[in-house]
């Protein structure tokens, strides 16, 4: 009897303990926001701005400010989605996918977007005609008719919302035809951390956005950098038959530039499948997902998963350990998708990704002023960065930093003009071919003036202090 009484008292005490606060108490959420403001005020600065933005796979830590001011302008530009496949894309923040926004539950996102699809381009006929665009944040709970309005070229829209739920949320252009706007590159991720942070400690954090491209050579046979320009293939798009399925906008992109991790480290990967029309069976060869938080919310937890299935606009945080030295292969285990480019590596031998010091559309380092060197820089960045770095070490070909000290100008000029002939006759060229896995440098059919511009640029690089000039991986 005494025992029973004690149990009853204990049960009573337990009942009196305050229950933890409900993280989803809607009465504590913020559903208020001022009406969106649309103006004819343009913007000429950076296409993407904000301390809460990460531009690539490596995620910046959460910015502590409770109000995140974010600018993501819309642009039309040619991007390379696979070697030689230059696609006339539409973007947020001038990149595909758009930059990742990181916030915490309770934070306010103050968003501004200028439709800059009408900005002059060096070769305007390569770009789609200016058009209306809009922004649809899945992380927001707002009136679509107010906040997600389409704006005309030259217009700016501003609105704000509070992040009420944790997760990884898609953002995309919602202007009809939405399918075309998403398939042309207008998407990205918003990461909302739980108010108290994640329950585990990760050593690395990466974002991986899976998407499909549906492309065909331009019917007008337009050329870009000597190759065909690719445009959206409407028939394949409507039939959901992609030509490329990729991670972070690039066919096999993270095979060429693997993500870094060390043995024993815990990797937290924020995976978002934006589609627009395919599912993803996300898997990492060589490890098991210790935790999967569906939609990026730790309350939706699964343990010991091999694969996570994500429909269009579904997401998950996957956490896994790197058990030992090696390259761990991220794939969409729908292997038809993987064969179209949805592959990447997390490798213990990868160099840490270069710090993203500045937005890619701003100068990340010193820049030449001589017009020939400027033209050479532009040509180099559009044609050569896939195979060569500037101060970043070897890629498929040599690092061009120091090239004017290794070779004399006449040799370089000949090499740029007729590499195939040099490979037949010149001992230095032959040795270089052998050193670089017999991958010959293609003849770019450069004019004498263009060669002069390249040389001016290379000379300018070598006149800078060591390490002062660095190219961004991939190029634009």
């Amino acid at each position, binding site marked *: 009897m005494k025992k029973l009484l004690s149990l009853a008292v204990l049960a009573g005490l337990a009942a009196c303990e305050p229950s933890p606060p409900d993280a989803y108490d809607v009465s504590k959420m913020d559903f208020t926001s001022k009406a969106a403001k649309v103006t004819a005020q*343009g913007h000429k600065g950076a296409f993407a701005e904000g301390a809460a933005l990460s531009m690539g796979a490596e995620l910046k830590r959460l910015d502590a400010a409770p109000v995140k001011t974010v600018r993501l302008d819309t642009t039309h530009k040619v991007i390379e989605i696979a070697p030689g496949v230059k696609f006339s894309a539409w973007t947020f923040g001038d990149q595909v996918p758009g930059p990742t926004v990181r916030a915490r539950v309770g934070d306010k996102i103050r968003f501004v977007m200028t439709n800059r699809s009408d900005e002059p381009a060096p070769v305007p006929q390569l770009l789609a*005609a200016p058009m*209306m665009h809009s922004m649809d944040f899945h992380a927001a709970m707002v009136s*679509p008719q107010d906040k997600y*309005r389409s704006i*005309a070229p*030259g217009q700016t829209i501003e609105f704000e919302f509070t992040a009420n739920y944790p997760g990884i949320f898609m953002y995309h252009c919602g202007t*009809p035809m939405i399918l075309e706007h998403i398939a042309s590159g207008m998407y990205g991720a918003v990461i909302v951390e739980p108010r108290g942070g994640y329950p585990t400690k990760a050593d690395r954090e990466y974002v991986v956005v899976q998407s499909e491209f549906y492309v065909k050579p331009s019917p007008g046979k337009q050329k870009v950098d000597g190759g065909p320009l690719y445009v959206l293939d409407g028939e394949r798009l409507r039939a959901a038959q992609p030509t490329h399925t990729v991670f972070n906008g690039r066919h096999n992109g993270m095979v060429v530039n693997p993500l870094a991790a060390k043995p024993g480290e815990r990797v937290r990967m924020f995976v978002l499948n934006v589609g627009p029309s395919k599912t993803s069976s996300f898997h990492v060869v060589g490890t098991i997902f210790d935790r999967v938080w569906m939609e990026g919310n730790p309350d939706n937890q699964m343990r010991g998963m091999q694969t996570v299935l994500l429909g269009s606009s579904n997401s998950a945080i996957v956490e896994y350990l790197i058990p030992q030295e090696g390259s761990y292969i991220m794939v969409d285990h729908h292997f038809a998708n993987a064969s179209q480019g949805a592959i990447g590596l997390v490798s213990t031998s990868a160099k840490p990704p270069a710090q993203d010091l500045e937005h890619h559309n701003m100068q990340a380092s010193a820049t030449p002023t001589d017009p020939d060197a400027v033209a050479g820089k532009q040509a180099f960045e559009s044609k050569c960065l896939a195979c060569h770095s500037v101060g970043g070490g070897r890629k498929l070909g040599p690092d061009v930093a120091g090239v004017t000290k290794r070779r004399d100008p006449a040799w370089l000029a000949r090499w740029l003009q007729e590499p195939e002939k040099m490979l037949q006759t010149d001992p230095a060229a032959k040795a270089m071919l052998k050193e670089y896995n017999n991958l010959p440098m293609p003849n770019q059919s450069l004019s004498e003036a263009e060669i002069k511009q390249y040389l001016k640029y290379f000379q300018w690089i070598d006149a800078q202090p060591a390490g002062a000039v660095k190219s961004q991986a991939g190029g634009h």
Partner: protein
Amino acid sequence: MAGLLLSLQALACGYCVEDKIAATYDHAVITRALAHGRHVVFFHVDGAPVARAVLEQAARGRGIENGSARISPDALSLSVAFDPRRMPLVELNAWLDRKLAKHKASLLPLRVMERRSDLAAVKR
């Protein structure tokens, strides 16, 4: 005015007003029209379903720029560039409505662009 508000409320079914405009927004038409002192008006096509050919036929003549009509049957929208000196918007709207009356359709002006990057609400 009440009619206009009711009609706009009825549009809140997935397409924002601006999205209907986007469906017929043609930057080349707009740039050309504004450069020549013309305006561009965006209409919602109200009433019975109307064939594209009917709208194309209706949007010809009297102050409407040749070849400027853009039609989206899916979004039920129509845009035209017009010369406001030859025919003010109110008259243009009434004239087009008369032409479409026999098809039991009418036009609801959503926005008018008189300057670049300025989709102004239509004052009635």
